[in-house]
């Protein structure tokens, strides 16, 4: 089995935790504080005693002084649902190194962060026909995550486009939580899908991975461009005018994604497929407080 992370990267990831802006209700007890009152050691508030309350949380000092039973409440600790969405569409196979490889590598790293923090990790390839995977928990699940990400991916079909898949995910019964999307964002209708994701209550972290082919295309001559994911065909003469127009469109498209993500309270980062996981973690995720 191919190991996506190197020992050096494990050491780098050790001790890191996701730092979502929102709090989410957990499914099982975990290591992450919630707004719910619970049984952690983190004090939350006082309230009147009511029948049936656990006397272990009665504040005896207050009772002795005021002769009034006051209960101490504590914040609850639950697990965080982290949905790791990895774009596996055809467009991710472009670039040197391929965007897919960078996305898988980064997904493994982020998955390890979640597993190490006791979060419930839901890895999922989008853009292909695949059944969702059950939640992974604990460091030991990194092996399963690694196996999943290195396994043969399912069949790509036009109906499993990025925006369609994200809409489906938003409409599904998946636990509300942190959604980390690793994708090139090459879908003209992605803005609607992002909005749907926000409406569902997820916090979306979008790491857009683009290769040099997209960021600085080196095309020449008279070409018929065939869309890797559909039937789209465009005839161009790859001259300076065409390249300039393309770069303008790309800049506008990326800005549209960033604005959509920020509008729903998410985070956005643009990464080059040639960048290392280490540099993405250090320069973007750590510096901008995505992880701590």
């Amino acid at each position, binding site marked *: 089995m191919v190991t996506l992370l190197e020992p050096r990267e494990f050491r780098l990831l050790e001790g890191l935790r996701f730092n979502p802006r929102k709090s989410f209700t957990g499914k099982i007890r975990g290591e992450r504080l919630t707004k719910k009152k619970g049984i952690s050691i983190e004090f939350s508030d006082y309230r009147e005693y009511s029948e049936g309350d656990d006397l272990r949380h009665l504040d005896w000092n207050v009772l002795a002084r005021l002769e009034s039973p006051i209960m101490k409440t504590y914040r609850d600790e639950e697990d965080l649902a982290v949905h790791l969405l990895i774009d596996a569409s055809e467009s991710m196979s*472009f670039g040197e190194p391929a965007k897919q490889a960078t996305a898988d590598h980064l997904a493994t790293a982020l998955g390890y962060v979640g597993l190490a923090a006791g979060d419930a990790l839901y890895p999922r390839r989008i853009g292909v026909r695949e059944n969702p995977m059950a939640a992974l928990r604990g460091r030991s699940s990194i092996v399963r995550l690694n196996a999943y990400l290195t396994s043969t991916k399912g069949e790509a079909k036009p109906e499993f486009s990025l925006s369609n898949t994200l809409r489906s995910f938003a409409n599904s019964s998946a636990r509300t939580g942190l959604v980390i999307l690793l994708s090139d964002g090459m879908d003209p209708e992605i803005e609607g899908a992002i909005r749907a994701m926000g409406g569902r209550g997820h916090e979306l972290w979008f790491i857009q991975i683009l290769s040099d082919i*997209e960021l600085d295309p080196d095309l020449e001559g008279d070409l018929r461009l065939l*869309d890797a994911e559909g039937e789209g065909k465009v*005839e161009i003469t790859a001259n*300076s*005018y065409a390249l300039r*127009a*393309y770069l303008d*469109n790309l800049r506008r498209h990326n800005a549209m994604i960033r604005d959509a993500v920020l509008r729903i309270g998410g985070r956005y980062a643009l990464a080059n497929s040639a960048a290392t996981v280490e540099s993405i973690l250090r320069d973007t995720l750590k510096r901008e407080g995505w992880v701590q």
Partner: protein
Amino acid sequence: MSLQNLGALLWLVPLGGVIIILYLLRMKRRDLRVPATFLWPERTEEIRANSLFQRLRFSWLLVLQLLALTLIVFAIAKPQTKQRGLTGEVTVIVVDASASMGATDVEPTRFDAAKRLAKEAVESAKPGDRIALIEAGPNPRVVFSLSNDPRKQVRSIDTMSRSDAEVDIGEALRLAAALVGTEESARIVLLSDGVFEPVKDFSRGKASLIFQSIGKSDHNLAITALGVADTGQGRQVYVGVRNPSGAQLSGKVNLYADGKLLDSEKVTINTDKSWGKTVAAPAGTSLIEARLDADDFLKSDNYAVALANPGASLRVLLVGKGDFFIERALSLDPRVTLDRASEVPMGERGAGPGGVYDVVVFDGTPAVPVKARGVLSLGSVGALTPVTRVGSTKTPDFVSAENVKLMDGVDFRNVYIETMQKVRPKPEGKVVATSNDGPLLVSSSGDQRQVYLAFEPLQSDFPLSVSFPIFIANVLDFLGGDEGTGDLAIRAGQTFSIPASKPILLTKPDDEVAEIPSNGSTAVVRDVKTVGKYGLRVDGKQRSVYATLRSDRESKIAPEVDVELGGGAIKAVRSPMRFADFWRPLLLLCLLVLAGEWWLFTRKS
């Protein structure tokens, strides 16, 4: 603007159509998979096409290519603009350098005005125009050949000089036609006063002919006759003056005998009339000069010379079928005025004085008795010939020759003779040269001198040898009488030969001295171009040569407006126009358009 090749415009339609069809062809593009196509603009520039077909779309490349094609087709159509100027793209300027061009009715002379026009034409020529210039003197001279170097050409024009000779302008025009007659846009420009005989045998080819007339006035008096004759009243001098102009003119005629004034008379001559006078000259006078002092425009015909010694000038009649070599050899002698005839005129037949001709040459024709002082019989025997014919022989060999003046510089040793008459000399005949089959050359001296050559020159290779013209000159000396001082009176511009073993020195009227090479026996003199007295130093002896004009045609200096050239009348142009080709700027513009098209192409691709 006009087009020389209008038909070339027809190419515009098919070629333009081809270019448009190329733009109708659809491009077969290279397929390339990309992550997404929605970011790429539908932006195509049809700069190549290899598939059928598509709707014609606007393209700057198409516009520029059609523009370039249009410019090329128009350039091929040879557009031209009309401008003032003598010269064209290819021009030969012929400057008349004859005597009449020395007329001063145009300051300083007509010839200088022609040179000035030639200079202006050269200096105003456009880059790329090629100009040649021919000086139409006694011997036409290419001053500079077809070229485009105005500075050098102007310097060459300064070296041109006029002659006081009658000029055959046809020779210069034929030379010009040979230079440019095959070129479409060539022109031959004749700068002349039109004072020349009609030119018959001339074809200008494809070149156009432009005649620019120079001259304003016809005022001229000319000495047209000056002769010396020994009569019963002693030596008489006749002088004649003519007024060929359209106005009455006056002048003073002075006659000099051996440099001393003999007679002087003021004359007034009406238009187209002559005046003449006979004056007795002192006995022993050898040189008679006539000078005309008149307020006219041509000075070179105001001087004439007559030499009194009988051998100084010879009128020669050549009787026969015609032999180019004999004619040429006779013409080279400065004393000779040659006439040709197939038989002797009745007036010249008989015996005794009174004949017009000094010498009669019978070339293959039996000699008949004539009044001339001398007779040369070439391969023919007549009644008075100093030999009697006995038969004929083939390929005789030369044996010996007498050491006489007739044989000076003449060598029969290597002469091949095909057929020769076998003769026996008469008692008065003196055999000068003999062959193994009898006399080759016989002479007799008496009242009439006779020279007999036993073969026709054309029956041998004698005319090809250097001895031939010397032989003819010796014969003329012998027949002419061997008298006199050796002075010569010739027409200005005449080329003549002088027996000379060494180079001779020619002193011109302006005291300039020129050395003329000799081939060991003869020197050919070509530099006697202007009227005046020349000195000749020949083998240590000093001789004088008097050059005069004596040409009725040249003296009639009225500038002509219509001249006969090559069988057609050519009218003098007042303001000559030239057609300037316009195709070069079009091609330059086309190159700029193509450069722009290339820039656009590279920018788009």
